[in-house]
């Protein structure tokens, strides 16, 4: 079958096969090409010995250098951690109340918190921390805080969450459902009264009476809310569940209540501190005033 011959015009031997009259020249490789080819073979042998290569049953051969992409990542991460170690140690030592006194450290904490926020918090609160009224995730940029907006209160909320099952120290409040308790007129009157706090409707005696009997205990007689119980302020412009009459009626009859997971145990205390600093820095953060006497707020000062 093989019919090697010398091709006359080029003087090159053919490989000896013919396909419909087409033959192939057996042109010798350029020497540099051949040597490069041998070099790659030599290299591949070395590579297979040095690096992970052969797939085995549960994992690949390890290679004598012990290199792995995971190991490399871990090394890079630990190098980055090393670089941040001083800042983290300072943050671990400082009680969060005194963080604002240390401007540069506060800036570092805010920057670190911004990074942690993008990983852990944006899923609900959004990348701009603006939350979502539709879904009931609070806006963290404004100055309305259900549970307090100073660094310590924010850190506590982060650590223990809100309505977190299984955490005894979680922040918890319940708005009872009033479905069936009022007839339509009463409900309308109550809604008017609530809207009147922020000047959006006329108050009326019926609504005022119902409010005083059922709502004032938590929300305050003028709708000022109560942070100790997590009762929302009703006399301001911010409505987590919407400010329309419909939305308010809905919230009276069948209240929706959000849930914030606890992050203690999932994030280390320094990251929690940084997150608190970041959320505080978004523009609505408060100084330590009211919540100072809140006995439940404790700072984890253990590094």
């Amino acid at each position, binding site marked *: 079958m093989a019919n090697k011959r010398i091709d006359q015009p080029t003087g090159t031997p053919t490989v000896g096969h013919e396909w419909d009259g087409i033959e192939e020249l057996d042109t010798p490789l350029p020497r540099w090409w051949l040597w490069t080819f041998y070099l790659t073979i030599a290299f591949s042998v070395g590579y297979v010995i040095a690096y992970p290569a052969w797939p085995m049953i549960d994992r690949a051969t390890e290679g004598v250098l012990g290199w792995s992409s995971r190991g490399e990542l871990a090394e890079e991460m630990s190098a980055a951690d090393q670089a941040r170690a001083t800042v983290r140690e300072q943050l671990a030592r400082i009680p969060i109340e005194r963080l604002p006194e240390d401007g540069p450290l506060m800036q570092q904490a805010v920057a670190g918190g911004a990074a942690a926020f993008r990983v852990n918090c944006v899923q609900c609160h*959004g*990348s*701009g921390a603006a939350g979502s009224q539709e879904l009931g995730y609070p806006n963290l*940029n*404004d*100055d309305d805080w259900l549970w307090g907006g100073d660094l310590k209160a924010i850190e506590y909320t982060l650590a223990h969450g809100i309505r977190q099952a299984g955490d005894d120290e979680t922040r918890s409040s319940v708005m009872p459902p009033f479905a069936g308790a009022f007839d339509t007129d009463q409900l309308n009157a109550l809604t008017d009264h609530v809207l009147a706090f922020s000047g959006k409707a006329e108050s009326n005696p019926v609504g005022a009476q119902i409010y005083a009997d059922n709502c004032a205990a938590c929300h305050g007689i003028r709708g000022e809310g109560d942070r100790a119980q997590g009762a929302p302020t009703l006399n*301001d*412009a*911010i409505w987590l569940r919407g400010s329309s009459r419909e939305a308010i009626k809905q919230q009276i009859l069948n209240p929706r209540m959000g849930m914030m997971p606890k992050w203690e145990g999932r994030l280390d205390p320094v990251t929690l501190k940084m997150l608190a600093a970041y959320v505080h820095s978004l523009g609505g953060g408060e100084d330590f005033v009211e919540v100072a006497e809140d006995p439940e707020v404790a700072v984890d000062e253990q590094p």
Partner: protein
Amino acid sequence: MPERLYEPRKAVHNKRIDGPFRRFKWLVMLVTLGIYYVTPWIRWDRGPYAPDQAVLVDLANRRFYMFSIEIWPHEFYFVAGLLIMAGIGLFLVTSAVGRAWCGYACPQTVWTDLFQHVDRFVDGDRNARIRLDAAPWTWSKVARRAFKWSIYLFIGFWTGGAWIMYFADAPTLVEDFWRGEAASVAYITVAVLTLTTVTLGGFMREQVCIYMCPWPRIQTAMMDEKSLLVTYKDWRGEPRGSVKKAAKNPDRFGDCIDCTQCVQVCPTGIDIREGPQIGCITCGLCIDACDRVMDDIGRPRGLIDYATLEDCEREAAGEAVKSPWRTLLRPRTIAYTMIWAGIGGALLFALGTRSHTELTVAPDRNPPFMLMSDGSVRNSYTLKIRNMESRPRAMEIAVEGLPGALMWTDTINRDEASATQRVTVPADLVRAVRAYVAVPVGTAPQQFEFRVTSLDEQRETDVVETRFDAPEDE
């Protein structure tokens, strides 16, 4: 034996010569090398917040200092302008006095000249060097070569060593360099420049001008019959003949006695009598050599001379030559001068009137606005305030054209909110300020301005228009 693929270099062993052009070359070498080596050591007081080196390219901090001028990266057009001026300056010089840059001031010329003096110092003048080149490799030749090349290396090292001084504080860098504590890039730069200096100046020499440099090609396109060139006046010199022959037959021979002095002194090894050519860098050393010979044999000077082609023709025809001023002042040189001066003036004007305070504003887009509990609407902005003075400055930030607006920042509490705030911007830096601006209920979305004013006697100000977002209607 296959054909040779290249033409081997014919070594140039140029002879020592003295004369006005040689002395001018010494002077230019002294001045240019002096500038190169001394400049980084000049101090210039800029106060405690900026380096005190007069000329410094501070790559790490992205600043370029030149005496009282400080250039930031966003002002790179100044450097571009300087480069354009340098280019047009070369055009001007070339059209006025020919290849004066090549002949006197080009670093390749200056360093080649320096290395040729080293050759002469170590190996002797032309004839001794030709003999030594041809001689077999004896120990004494090896020793001589080793000595000469170590001087080459020494010159190369100091060339690279001076270069790095422009990029860091010179005294500190020298100390760190010898202690082995300088940045590795400093050592690499010195090594590379040592190598290139020795290669280009020590060994390649005129081949750089003839084969590598694009400038001679560009210059040939820029010269005309009115450009000054080093010219052999063939109408006067030809036919060549020795003094003896000429004495016998005075009418047959020209002034050139074919002594080849002009060829022997040429640093690029050409024969100027073959006419204008790309290898001629117009250094004028052949003029020195020829004038000396003409003096010796009692013939008029100027057989080889700076002349324009036009003048040569006139002179040959026995007409009067034009005044040199006619060569220098003609429409082309005047146009180049005006363009050059125009760019220079514009740069100086821009430099003199530039503001040392600048503001950029980036409004937050997520969320675009924020409802506060009292019903007011807040927008957030990142302001970047640039302080180009080398001292900290107090700046006033003002919100203008937004009725009822109150502003606070990341460092100023909301309790102290006001339409104007003060911040201090550190010396020679950009400070980022988070600014929160709130307006009363019912304000419509609109454009407004941030104004930054320096609170010093300069009262520099910068205004940036930006947008205030608010809910369209409730």
